[in-house]
């Protein structure tokens, strides 16, 4: 066990959609400076868990502790107030805006009531530089002219800019080629090295083994295993995901 206080700690989380119980008492933690992978098959409840953490779809029951204190997450604004940033699978960038504009979207800096473009450009450049991003040509490029990997980079860098304490990445490499996947995974590790707690959702188990420190496995709305990447292996994780293995033993 990691001794420090987790950045986020969920206990007994439940969520139903009508008669369907999607989350059946989930316990989950993520620690600063660590990458925690959340894996599970389609329908296991990963997205529902993430949406709850993002404040998009509040949980029905359960405790949420943020840095040790109990909180409520009922809106995206509340979540981002605590420093929770979600990088969605479908990216959520505006193609018609440039990189700087996207990174500051909704958090624009003002000076005398008008947009403070130089300050935003400088900070965006610094954030990208801190993550050693060198793949983009210009920070004033329109996002429509960026590749999938570059867009993912911008989306992740945005969370750094906002001084997020917890960054949730939903399938960050799903649509990417080999080289771009490598770049994004490196970026994820650099993000954690900055002291951020990173939760990564992925179907690609080999990606998970490359970046994650902890692996949490969900199966049909339950958290079936919390594994340390170093003391587990590919087959064990797959067995938990497919439900052929449970904490009690092999079925």
């Amino acid at each position, binding site marked *: 066990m990691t001794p420090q206080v987790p950045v986020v700690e969920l206990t007994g989380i439940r969520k139903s959609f009508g008669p369907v119980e999607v989350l059946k008492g989930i316990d989950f933690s993520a620690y600063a400076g660590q990458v925690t992978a959340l894996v599970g098959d389609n329908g296991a409840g990963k997205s529902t868990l993430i949406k709850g953490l993002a404040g998009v779809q509040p949980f029905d029951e359960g405790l949420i502790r943020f840095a040790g204190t109990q909180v409520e997450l009922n809106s995206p604004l509340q979540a981002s107030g605590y420093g929770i940033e979600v990088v969605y699978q479908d990216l959520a960038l505006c*193609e*018609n805006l440039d990189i700087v*504009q996207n990174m500051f979207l909704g958090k624009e800096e003002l000076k005398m009531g*008008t947009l403070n473009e130089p300050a935003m450009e400088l900070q965006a450049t610094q954030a990208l*530089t801190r993550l050693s991003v*060198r793949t983009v040509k210009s920070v*004033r490029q329109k996002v429509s*002219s960026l590749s999938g990997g570059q867009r993912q980079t911008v989306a992740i860098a945005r969370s750094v800019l906002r001084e997020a304490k917890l960054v949730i990445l939903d399938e960050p490499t799903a649509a990417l080629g080999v080289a771009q996947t490598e770049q994004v995974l490196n970026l994820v590790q650099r993000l954690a090295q900055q002291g951020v707690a990173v939760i990564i959702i992925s179907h690609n188990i080999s990606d998970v083994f490359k970046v994650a420190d902890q692996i949490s496995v969900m199966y049909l709305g339950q958290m079936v295993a919390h594994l340390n990447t170093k003391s587990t292996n590919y087959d064990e994780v797959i067995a938990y995901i497919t439900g052929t293995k449970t904490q009690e033993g092999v079925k």
Partner: protein
Amino acid sequence: MSEKVASTEKVTSLASGHEGTLGDQVRGYFARVKGGEMGSLPAVFGIIILTLAFESLSPFFITKLNFANLFVQAAELTMLSSALVFVILLAEIDLAAGVTAGVAMAAFIDLVKTQGWPWIPALIVAFLVGIAIGSVIGFLVAKIGVPSFVVSLAFFLGFQGMQLVLLGEGGVYRVEVPAILAIMNKNLPAAGGWILLFVSAAASLVLSIWDRRRRATTGLVNKPFSIIIIRLVAILVLGSFSVYYLNLNRSQGVIPIKGVPIVLPITIVVLAIGTFVLDRTRFGRHLYAVGGNPEAARRAGIKVVKIRILAFIICSFLAVISGVFHASRIGSVDGSAGHTIVLSGVAAAVVGGVSLFGGRGRLAQAAIGAIVISMIDNGLGLLQMPAGISYLVQGGVLLAAATIDALSRRRNGVVSRS
């Protein structure tokens, strides 16, 4: 200069598009045009071609009188297409913009003529009517989720009835307010035109230098100063020519008519404020964001519903200004005002380079598009072509512009997926 020092101290490795010589900037511009960001370039070429064509076909096209007429005709359309830009940027449409103006002016004339109100409070009420209509349309679109095409079509039909109710069947009321009539029919004194030009040029220069200083003090690179000089010279040359030409007597009668039409400074001020709001305020940025990707905007914490409603309110408000221009030009208010102009307004915006897909476009582009549409109307009229031909040509130009828009969008898409 201190800017140079700052640029050498720059430690970051990422470019911002401000680097390089004038040549680099020009090459960058052409690269963007090639990449599909054409802006109003096609429309500017359109203006040049139309000018050459009409000039060779009609001896009346480039005359002092017609030059002034063009400004006056285009002003009304510019105001309406600028109004529409605010909703088109959201990939929405307001087909009721024209009749909104019509209803507001009907309310105005009703208050002045039959209720005996002074004109200023009546005009304020007219604008409040516009704001109210915009709020209702915006509410139905943004909050309830009725497609804007349908909502505004319903208002388009309904308000034609409202105009008739307010003014009576076949009612035509003369506008007898000198201040309103002056907008389109009176001109600035000669010195006023020059002051307008130099104030505009100075404002543009001061704003550019202000921006450069802010970038420099932050430690960022600036574009070459020569760009500002070139733009300033362009404004001064085009502006001086226009002011000089408009200051010549264009009357065919005994009483001289000369000077810059009063509508011009009003239009410039409204466009400048609108452009400032779109480019430099948080609201403007959010408007573009919602137009580009509403879901992304929502996730970024932008109040999408509020932005949408505000856009419709601004659209209706500016539409009322175009209604005032119309009443001033025609000299009367009747039950059919604003029925046909709205489609020309959409056409003008699209021809100028505003994307119907949302998220791309500027007010200046709407103005350029409005000049193209007005030139077609005006030029074909001078050639004594039937009105049918004018509509056919306008339709063709709109189709061409919308096709260019779709193609450039597709090209953009291809680039992004590579």
